[in-house]
């Protein structure tokens, strides 16, 4: 039995998942919320994005269950000796991807390559020659890479794509069958409805996205055991593995930092809007001070201070991973502490408006305490603002992490993140011959993640803020006129920065 390790970010991430589950239950039971979320569920772009996000979320959950594996008992040890655990903390994802993680080459190699990317002195037939050496793992099953490589890659790619296609067909059939059961039609009828977009939920768009993902996954699964699909980095680590590991960092930064802004923003925003006068002045002063400091500098100042603290107390952290994790945790907390001003300002304005409304006046006349009014009458009615801003901020925080890592105040250098990947790509692009795959992998994963999050966020925004719906683009005039018609498929939903 391995020893489970609970890192600070793991715990918060799981608490957050529990909270989301509670919210989902609450939303399902509240008719108005259900109705609003139904708008999101019917949006093809948002639901396709949700499929991608779901995959990313699964990866980051798997990467958030950490353990230290049990070491085999030392020879000659007593039978009842205390079990010894490995000093390396791994996650479930690490365990699943053990093969590519351990297949370390010496240095750079191109995607699907069989040879190293830099020459070495090799001993061939008693003579020393400068040559590109074969990789230790990538393509090591080929005897004559020059001639076999093409055929092997094509063969495996086709097999992988075929496997992905089979899986995709299965998913279509399963969804079709499940839907057929719930709406009581035949499977064929149900599939036809999905294919002709006659369903309420945009199953066709979701299944198309899922099929693309499955095809890609099948292709990767077929090649990864034999090659480094996205190449290797300077120290020979698999790039694809690093990109997958980076997902968790992005999710943690996005979610934890958003979460950390909420208490400040909600408490201060509502207090300022409700009490007005002196309280309002004080809170406004506080957030003007915070927002008047350029955010990168403010974050840098905080992070430098934390770094001094961490360096001063090395005994607090058992492993390097714990130290890196606490830095990630604190970075998210700092982003929260420094970033609540915008939301607080919005909530203050909303509360100002609400507290003049009749039902609040009535509550006051009935003698409900201030706290009671704020908790029961104001808070639930500003939650939509909180939700909109939270989902909109998520993706910008992921983008921000990359910038902060570049400035040197981001995550720990040992933590895999999109920022650190881009950072190393900087020197690789000016190298000769150029190393482009590291940047490509970071780019592909980051764009997929951020774009999905933005599409989903703008659908949430449109659902909760009906005014935003008017700004959605339409491809044809008829679609614009027929407001009741279903929105065009694949339409990128209106996305505007939060006011």
């Amino acid at each position, binding site marked *: 039995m391995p020893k489970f390790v609970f890192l600070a970010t793991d715990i918060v991430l799981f608490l957050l998942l529990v909270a989301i589950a509670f919210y989902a239950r609450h939303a399902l039971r509240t008719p108005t919320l259900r109705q609003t979320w139904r708008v999101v569920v019917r949006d093809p772009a948002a639901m396709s994005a949700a499929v991608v996000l779901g995959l990313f979320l699964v990866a980051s959950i798997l990467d958030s269950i950490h353990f230290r594996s049990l070491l085999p008992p030392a020879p000659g040890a007593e039978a009842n000796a205390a079990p010894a655990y490995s000093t390396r903390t791994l996650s479930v994802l690490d365990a699943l991807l053990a093969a590519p993680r351990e297949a370390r080459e010496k240095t750079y190699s191109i995607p699907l390559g069989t040879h190293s990317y830099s020459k070495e002195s090799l001993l061939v037939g008693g003579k020393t020659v400068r040559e590109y050496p074969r990789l230790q793992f990538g393509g090591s099953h080929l005897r004559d890479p020059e001639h076999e490589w093409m055929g092997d890659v094509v063969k495996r790619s086709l097999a992988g794509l075929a496997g992905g296609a089979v899986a995709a067909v299965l998913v279509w059939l399963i969804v079709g069958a499940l839907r057929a059961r719930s709406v009581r039609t035949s499977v064929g009828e149900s599939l036809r409805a999905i294919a002709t977009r006659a369903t309420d939920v945009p199953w066709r768009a979701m299944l198309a996205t899922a099929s693309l993902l499955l095809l890609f996954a099948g292709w990767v699964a077929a090649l990864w055991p034999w090659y480094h699909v996205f190449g290797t980095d300077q120290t020979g680590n698999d790039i694809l593995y690093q990109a997958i590991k980076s997902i968790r960092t992005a999710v943690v930064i996005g979610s934890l930092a958003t979460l950390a802004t909420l208490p400040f923003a909600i408490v201060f925003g509502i207090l300022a809007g409700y009490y007005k006068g002196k309280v309002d002045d004080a809170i406004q*002063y*506080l957030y*003007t*001070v915070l*927002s*008047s*400091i*350029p955010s*990168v*500098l*403010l974050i*840098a*100042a*905080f992070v*430098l*201070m934390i*770094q*001094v*603290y961490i*360096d*001063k107390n090395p005994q607090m952290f058992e492993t390097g991973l714990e130290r890196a994790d606490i830095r990630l945790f604190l970075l998210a907390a700092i982003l929260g502490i420094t970033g609540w001003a915008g939301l607080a300002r919005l909530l203050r304005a909303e509360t100002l408006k609400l507290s003049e409304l009749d039902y609040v006046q009535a509550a006051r006349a009935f003698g409900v305490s201030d706290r009671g009014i704020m908790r029961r009458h104001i808070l639930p009615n500003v939650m939509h603002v909180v939700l909109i801003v939270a989902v909109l901020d998520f*993706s910008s925080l992921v*983008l921000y992490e*990359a*910038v902060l890592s*570049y*400035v*040197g*105040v981001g995550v720990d250098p040992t933590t895999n993140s*999109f920022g650190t990947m*881009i950072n190393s*790509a*900087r020197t690789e*692009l*000016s190298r000769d011959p*150029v190393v482009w795959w590291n*940047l490509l992998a970071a*780019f592909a994963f*980051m*764009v997929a993640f*951020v*774009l999905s999050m*933005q*599409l989903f966020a703008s659908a949430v925004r449109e659902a909760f803020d009906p005014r935003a719906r*008017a*700004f959605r*683009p*339409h*491809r*044809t*005039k008829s*679609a*614009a006129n027929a407001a009741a018609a279903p929105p*065009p498929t694949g*339409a*990128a939903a*209106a*996305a*505007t*920065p939060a006011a």
Partner: protein
Amino acid sequence: MVNYIIRRVGYGVLILIGVNVFTFMLFFTVNTPDDMARMNIGGKRVSQDAIEKWKVERGYDKPLFWNGAAAGTQKLTKTIFYERSVQLFAFDFGASDSGRDIGYEIRTRVGPSVALAVPTFILGIVVVIAFSVLLVFFRNTYLEFWGFTVAVFMMAISALFYILLGQFLFSRVLKLVPISGFAGGWDLVVFLALPVLIGIVSRLGSEALFYRTMFLEEIGKDYVRTARSKGLSETVVLFRHVLRNAMLPILTSTVAILPLLFLGALIMESFFGIPGLGSYTIDAINAQDFAVVRSMVFVGSVLYIVGLILTDISYTVADPRIRLS
């Protein structure tokens, strides 16, 4: 009006005091000067003598707030708080931890920062407005749909990608411009062309979508319907009526950013080797030079507050309906 401005300036000074006290707390009470010295000298085993010497050289050996050993008003002025924080209000930044005059550095570095930031800002506004007006002009057509999709896609790309790819494409492959650097005279154009272009492109997506909603909001108003019912063509309505009215909030909101242009573009300067304030700040963060970071925090806040005051004033100038009280 004058009264109002005086009050706003007073409030600004109050904010600056807050910023000052806040950064002072952050830098000196969370960690002692000893920690800073140890970090700056480097290494785990730094002798106490070396730390003391480092502190004396930089004036960090004094008490934080109250110097009991000094006489008279010097009890207050011979402290770290006075020398390092209060003096900032006189724009006396003192020396950086590496011993150079911060004030001099800031003065010489403002030029390059402005040379990069101002063209980026002005051309950026022109391009963004043109793009968003086109989106509105072609609304409900395929052109808008694809323009919109491109903008959404551009929003999802980190600015770092634009910089890296831009440098790679224009400097390495096409060899049109130098990869980084800075020079005076006409060479300036060559050095700044790429950073300016990338600065515009990286912000185009999000800003164009934002402006687009502003134009669409404007286009739904009554006066636009009146203009159309008079029989004016869509082009005239859009460019003569909507554009002018929507420009008002856009211009007043950009006034707030104007002073911050002096700070320069942090990432852009550092990537392109432009010796401006942005790269100065990043270098200071990397070298963990707390004195410079503190000074830049102060300068940044001053510029932000100037921007706030300018915004308030520009509202009244642009829109006579708003009166300051």
